[in-house]
């Protein structure tokens, strides 16, 4: 882990309004050199607006400013302010011309000399595995190739901050994986800070050190990626972070690092502490649930319930099971286990999960 202390981007009191509606309201956000920050949130949350505002491309900034290094916007000539950034969109938006010309465009804009451009372009083409395409027309490339060119074009200018607006969303899985590998390699050991807008939690986990969850233009939670996914601050973040099960309950006992919550007529144990009577939302991630048949499971898990499978939905790598055990509990079960245990909708099962796998969101009243 690099020491990430030098701030490269500072957002202060940023307010973007359009037609009287608040599109984005970010009181403070600091990005350090080398940090990779994922921005997740539903459609219309203001994710792209945040990126364009950071880049000084947002016309409707009502208040506040963004600063890159010592240059703040508004205040600095826009093109000079922007020259520390690079951006890659979901569409590769390549220019008419060859692959090399595209990768060179940012340097050409900055007035670099021919030999310097040639050297940097070659490095970037190698880095993204597209050296063989250098003389191809950019508009004749496949989606994956084009996105590699777009990334190479962005990194050719050695930006302080790289802005990625869902750059992998329209790629097939193998292509996305291989480009992610190349990007990770390119970023490792560099001081370039990254803001990555994504819908994909896996992508966020893989690339980002920290994450912010945006909704209706406001930051609901910021923290280390794994932390936000495991311990969402509220029910909205929980649903967005893939916590499939969220049940409302009330604390009935607490002590010794263990909280007992009564929810939907059953008692659920969670690690932590809370005062009696506290209203909470119980969050259980689907991958932390063990499903078994036959007698009650022999695990050390503190929570064990009998239930009935209500729905069984096949997904890419596992089945998603909705199990009624007093409350609807969602669990992920491998295809192999489904076959082995002969699970089917309507079948009876036992579910268990550890107290440490339960996250409690405490409510105000």
């Amino acid at each position, binding site marked *: 882990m690099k020491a990430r202390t030098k701030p490269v981007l500072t957002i202060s009191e940023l307010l973007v309004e359009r037609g009287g509606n608040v599109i984005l309201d970010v009181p403070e956000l600091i990005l350090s050199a080398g940090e990779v920050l994922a921005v997740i949130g539903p459609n219309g949350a203001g994710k792209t607006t945040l990126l*364009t505002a950071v880049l000084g491309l947002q016309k409707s900034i009502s208040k506040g400013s963004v600063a890159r290094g010592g240059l703040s916007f508004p205040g600095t000539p826009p093109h000079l302010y922007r020259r520390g950034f690079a951006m890659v969109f979901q569409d590769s938006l390549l220019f008419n011309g060859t692959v090399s010309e595209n990768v060179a465009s940012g340097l050409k804009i900055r007035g670099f000399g021919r030999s310097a451009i040639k050297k940097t372009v070659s490095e970037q083409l190698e880095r993204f595995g597209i050296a063989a395409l250098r003389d191809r027309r950019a508009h004749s490339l496949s989606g994956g190739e084009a996105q590699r060119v777009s990334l190479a074009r962005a990194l050719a200018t050695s930006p302080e901050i790289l802005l990625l607006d869902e750059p992998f969303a329209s790629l097939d899985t193998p292509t996305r994986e291989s480009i992610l590998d190349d990007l990770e390699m390119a970023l490792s050991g560099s001081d370039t800070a990254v803001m990555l807008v994504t819908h994909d939690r896996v992508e966020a986990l893989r690339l980002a050190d920290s994450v912010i969850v945006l909704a209706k233009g406001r930051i609901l939670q910021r923290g280390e990626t794994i932390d936000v996914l495991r311990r969402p601050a509220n029910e909205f973040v929980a649903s967005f972070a893939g916590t499939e099960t969220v049940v409302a309950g009330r604390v009935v006992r607490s002590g010794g690092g263990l909280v007992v919550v009564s929810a939907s007529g059953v008692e659920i144990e969670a690690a932590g502490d809370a005062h009696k009577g506290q209203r909470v939302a119980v969050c259980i991630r689907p991958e932390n649930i063990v499903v078994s048949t036959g007698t009650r499971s022999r695990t050390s898990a503190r929570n064990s319930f009998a239930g009935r499978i209500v729905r069984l939905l096949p997904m890419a790598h596992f089945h998603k099971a909705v199990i009624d055990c007093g409350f609807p509990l969602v669990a992920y079960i491998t295809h192999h286990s489904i076959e082995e245990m002969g699970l089917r909708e309507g079948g009876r099962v036992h579910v268990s999960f550890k107290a440490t796998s339960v996250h409690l969101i405490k409510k105000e009243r």
Partner: protein
Amino acid sequence: MDLIVNGIKEAFRLIVTLDTEVLSVTLLSLQISGSATLISLVIGVSTGTAVALSEFPGKRLVASVINTGMGLPPVVVGLFVTIFIWRNGPFGFLGILYTPAAMVLAQAIIATPIVTGISFAAIQQLPDKLRLQILSLGATRAQMVWMLMREARLPLLAAVMAGFGGVISEIGASIMVGGNIKGYTRVLTTATVMETSRGNFDVAIALGIILLMLTFAINYILTSIQQKGGR
């Protein structure tokens, strides 16, 4: 029938032997319409681009006005230019009525909305994010406009060709403000009308063929550039 066959024979003789009269008329046509197109190119491409790239209330109205201008009847343009540069008109002091300058002016007025309208559409059809992409690469506004024009170069070229095609074949305004003076303001279209009315079909056909060939050459160049760009 003989009339046509002899006419065509004579026409080819005039063209092949580079008849001075025909040649001078052709060159003057090219000069006047070329100059007018150049003026319309400067005004039209910049106006079309500016309107396409800016957001202001009434943009739709401005676009509609430009598009209407694309179909401006040359006779109406000729009429108004004549009135304006008439001896005691507002610009009468310029003394340019019945000169090539007046023809360039009138033709530029006809071609400019055509070039503007097509340029506007050319820039407008580029993806909006392309502008953001260029700016994110650190471009100044001028660099951004230049790069967008490069991206739209094929339709912009079409705009120029359409402008030139419109004025080289135009007659109403040219005859009104130019007066069809031999060796001075006589161009392909005005000469064709005059020779036809005099019954000199051979010369008229020769001029007609030259005009057709010019139009064909323009479209051929345009089409081949488009085909090359589309590959």
